């Protein structure tokens, strides 16, 4: 399958290119891996907080309530109803939607269609509001024009495409 070649392919290109350029590959690797460890350490506290919150959302039945309320819309779009919370959560919280993805994988299994759709939805957009806030925060811009509506439209298109592509197995 094509996707089986992506990961080894990227590794091959990066390592061969680095060798041609004379980069000391292994020391670069270990430095980067150390950086990765620091990143995990940095996101751990927020992940603990949000996995707990999302766990509560599921256990209390509130998540089911949201999916049931959203069902007329999701069935109209032809996507699994369990993906509805992502449309709300993803643009505002990356770790939150990641925690939600984790609970969906645990409930439905990593090979299920729902888990796959949720994984693609989580992976295909950034945390839009955070990004807009940080980037405009670096400037003196007060009026953001069409930024938010256009970004929301793009997010919605990404997530809808994610669901539909997975449901209809386009690859």
């Amino acid at each position, binding site marked *: 399958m094509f*996707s089986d070649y992506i990961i080894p392919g*990227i590794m091959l290109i990066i390592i061969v290119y680095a060798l041609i350029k004379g980069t000391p590959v292994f020391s670069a690797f270990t430095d*980067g891996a150390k950086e990765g460890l620091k990143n995990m350490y940095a996101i751990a506290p927020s992940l603990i907080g949000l996995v707990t919150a999302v*766990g509560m959302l599921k256990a209390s039945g509130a998540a089911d309530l949201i999916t049931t309320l959203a069902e007329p819309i999701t069935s109209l779009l032809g996507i699994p109803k369990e993906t509805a919370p992502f449309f709300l959560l993803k643009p505002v919280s990356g770790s939150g939607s990641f925690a939600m993805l984790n609970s969906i994988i645990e409930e439905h299994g990593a090979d299920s269609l729902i888990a796959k759709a949720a994984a693609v939805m989580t992976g295909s957009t950034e945390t839009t509001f955070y990004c807009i806030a940080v980037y405009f925060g*670096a400037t003196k811009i007060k009026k953001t024009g069409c930024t938010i509506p256009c970004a929301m439209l*793009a997010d919605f298109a990404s997530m809808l495409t994610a669901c539909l592509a997975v449901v209809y197995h386009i690859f």
Partner: protein
Amino acid sequence: MLNYIWAIIIIGSIICSFFTGNTTALGESILSSANEAVELIISMTGILCLWSGIMEIGERSGITKAVAKLLSPILTRLFPTLDKNGKAYRAICMNVTANLLGLGNAATPLGLKAMKALEEESVLAKETHTADKNMIMFIILNTTSFQLMPTMIISILQSNGCTSPSAVIPYIWAASVAGIIVGIVSVNLFYKRKAGSDVF
């Protein structure tokens, strides 16, 4: 904002459990979730560190610059009014490339640099504190985030026993591209409607 979201999720869940009668399940989930989060983090750490290492090799070898050159024909079309030798354009190229390669730590500072440079190069932004088209286009490119190797997603699937985690990669690419296209088209439509007042 996360302050409110987190509090609302927790308070909403507790209130909801009174109505659904799931109070026992809620109590259990509070006790087990934190441990579950730590298990998740530990199970993902290996593969995330591995990819950070691989991407660091890429960054040090200068592959970022090579990829930025490849992207240049697309970016000149998205930012037709921008000076190709200017600071803003160069920062945009590097930021988009860093995002593409999943170098999140490098991408954000480059993005902030690009925003500041865009502000300096735009009369509209400097005089009226209004975002111009180039800025909005740049932000859309960042919020839709096309990433070659979605590490976090692969690792969470992997650690939960998915049989082929890399199968989601083409789907993630397709969904990102769809978002980028819709974003670009909607920004352009917005400015077309404002016709005459802006360079299109």
